C-alpha cells in the first residue's frame, strides 16, 4: 500500500492565510520562537542505503565527518552556552545514538532543560526503503533510547536526514507522538491527516536553517544573522493578526564556528529584547495551539 505514489499526499486541507481564526500565544505575544539545535552523530563508515549515499566522497569522507564531529567536541558547547545566556531553551533534533556515543552532550542539553525529539538513530541511516517493521523498529528504538538517557518521552520527529516513507506520519501518530517537523507549508501549526490519533505539523524551517543559509544561499555570518532578524520582525508583526511560529534550526558545527557565533548573538539579543516573542519549546507551542483549536488530544 505504502508503495503507491500519490501526486497529492493528502496531508492537510488547503487553508488560505487570510481570514484564519486568531491564534493567541500566552501574554499577548505575537510570535512563538523556538530554537531547534540538531544534536547529531554521523558514522565514519556507515552501512549503505541504495536510495541515498551517506557521504559525497568514498569513506572515510574526512572533511564531511570531521566537520560534523566539531559539533560534539567544540561548537555544541559554544552554541548551548549562548542560548542559555539569552534565555532560549532548545528543542533538540536528536540522532538518538548520540545518547550511546557521547552522553556528555545529551546530558548537557538535559541539564539546560531542553526538550528532545527524534532525528533517527544516526544521521547517516535513512528511512528510504524501510518496510513497516523496520520503521517501527527505529521509532521504538528512539522512544526507548531517549527515555533511558533523559527520562523524557519524545513527542516529536524530524526524519533522519529528512528521509521519509509514506507511512511515517501515520506511524508517528500511532505511537502517540504529537508533532512532526518535516512539513514546510505554513507559518502556523497545522494538524496533519493521519490514520489514527493526532499529529501536528509545527513550522520548522529549511529557508532559515543554518545549513541553507551557509551552504545553499552562501551567506556570510552577518548576512545570516540579518536574515534571521528580518524573518523574526516580519513574523512578529503579522502575528498580531494571528499568532505565528518562527523556528531557528541550527547545527552547532555551522553556527558554532568561531566566525559565526559572535554575529549570531545579535539575533538572540534582538529577539529577547523585542517583547513580542514567546520564547519557548516545540511541545509548548503544540499544546497552546491544540488548546485553542480544540484538538483531539
Amino acid at each position: 500500500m505504502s508503495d503507491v505514489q500519490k501526486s497529492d499526499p493528502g496531508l492537510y486541507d488547503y487553508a488560505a492565510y487570510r481570514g484564519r481564526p486568531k491564534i493567541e500565544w500566552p501574554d499577548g505575544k505575537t510570535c512563538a520562537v523556538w530554537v531547534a539545535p540538531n544534536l547529531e552523530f554521523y558514522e565514519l563508515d556507515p552501512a549503505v542505503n541504495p536510495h541515498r549515499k551517506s557521504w559525497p566522497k568514498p569513506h572515510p569522507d574526512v572533511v564531511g565527518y570531521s566537520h560534523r564531529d566539531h559539533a560534539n567536541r567544540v561548537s555544541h558547547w559554544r552554541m548551548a552556552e549562548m542560548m542559555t545566556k539569552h534565555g532560549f531553551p532548545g528543542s533538540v533534533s536528536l540522532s538518538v545514538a548520540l545518547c550511546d556515543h557521547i552522553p556528555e552532550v545529551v546530558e548537557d542539553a538535559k541539564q539546560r532543560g531542553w526538550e528532545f525529539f527524534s532525528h533517527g538513530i544516526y544521521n547517516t541511516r535513512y528511512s528510504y526503503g524501510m518496510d513497516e517493521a523496520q520503521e517501527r523498529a527505529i521509532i521504538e528504538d528512539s522512544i526507548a533510547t531517549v527515555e533511558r538517557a533523559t527520562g523524557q518521552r519524545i513527542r516529536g520527529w524530524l526524519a533522519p536526514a529528512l528521509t521519509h516513507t509514506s507511512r511515517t506520519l501515520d506511524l508517528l501518530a500511532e505511537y502517540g507522538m504529537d508533532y512532526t517537523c518535516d512539513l514546510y507549508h505554513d507559518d502556523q501549526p497545522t494538524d496533519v491527516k493521519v490514520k489514527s490519533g493526532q499529529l501536528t505539523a509545527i513550522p520548522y524551517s529549511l529557508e532559515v536553517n543554518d545549513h541553507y543559509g551557509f551552504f545553499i544561499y552562501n551567506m556570510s555570518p552577518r548576512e545570516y544573522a540579518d536574515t534571521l532578524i528580518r524573518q523574526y520582525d516580519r513574523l512578529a508583526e503579522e502575528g498580531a493578526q494571528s499568532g505565528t511560529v518562527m523556528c531557528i534550526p541550527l547545527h552547532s558545527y555551522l553556527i558554532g564556528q568561531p566566525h559565526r557565533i559572535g554575529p549570531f548573538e545579535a539575533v538572540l539579543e534582538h529577539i529577547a529584547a523585542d517583547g513580542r516573542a514567546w520564547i519557548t519549546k516545540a511541545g509548548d507551542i503544540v499544546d497552546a495551539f491544540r488548546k485553542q483549536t480544540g484538538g483531539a488530544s
Partner: protein
Amino acid sequence: MSLDPSYLDYPKRGRGMDHGYYPYSSLFDRKPVQWPGDKKLMIWPVISLEYFPMVPNDDPFRAPGHMQTAYPDYRHYTAREYGTRIGIYRLLSAFEKVGAKVSVATNSVIAKRYPQLIEDIISGGHEIIAHSTDMNGTIASGLAEADEKALIEGSLTALEKVIGTRPRGWLSIARSQSFNTAKLLAEAGVDYMCDWANDELPYGFQTDTGAITNIPLNHELSDRQIINVQQQSVDSYAQQMTDAADWLLAEAGQYGGRMLPMHLTPYIMGLPYRISSFEKLIAGFAERNDIGFARGDAILDSWKAQR
C-alpha cells in the same frame, strides 16, 4: 527497493567514537593551553603551494582548482601558475611586513621546478610542510596502499632533498584521506597532519603504526571556501576572520590559549585587488599584544610540551 535487515544493525553503537583514532574530548574540559610570549590567540597561517599538471588525473579524484576545459586548458594552467610566480610573493611580503612566520604546504614537484622560491621561503624563516607530489597526487579509498605509501614517501623525500630536513607536517589535497593515510604518515615519521577539521587545538591521533598529532586546519575559514566556493568578497573574508579572532580571544580569557588557522591560496588571495585588504587584516592582528603568529611545528612543540 527494500533494505537488507542488517541496515538496522549498529555494530559500533556504544560509548565514544565509532573508530579508534581518538577518544571523545570536549575543548572546554581540557587543561588550558599557554602559548609562548603569553599570547592568547595564535594565528597559524598555512599557504598551499600547488602545481597543477595540464593533464589532470581523476583517480581517485580531480583536485579542487584543477583543469576544466578540453586540452590544452591554458587558462587554468596559467592562472594557477600566477599563484606560484606572483601571488605567493605578495603573501610572503605581507607576512614579512608583520614579522610572521608561516607554514607553506608544498607540492614536492615545486621544490624541483622552482628551487628559488623554496630558498626564499626557507630563508624567510618559514616552515615547509608536505602537500603531496603535485595536484594529481590525490588520496582517497580506492588508491592502493602501496601506491599511497610511495606517494607519501616520494613527497617527503623530494622535499627533504631540497630543504635539507624532512618536513614534519602533512596536508592532503582537499584534506582527503583513505583509511590508510594516518597510519602511513605515522610510519613515515610525520609529526603532524592537518586534515581533520573537528577541533580547534592539536590532539593526538592513534594509528596501527603509532601516534600522530592532528592540527585542525579549519576548512571553513579558508580563502578557497569563503571567496571561491561561497563567492564572498575579500572584505567579507577579513570581517569573518576578525569576528573569529575576537570570539576566540574572549574565550581564551576563560579557557586558555586558542588557535586560529588561516588557510591561504596564492592564486586566490594573492591577486592585486584582494591583497591590500588582506594586508590590512594581518596588520591589525599584529598590532594586538594578545595575538601572535606561529608555524605549525612551533604550535605542535608548544602544545606537546604542555601535555
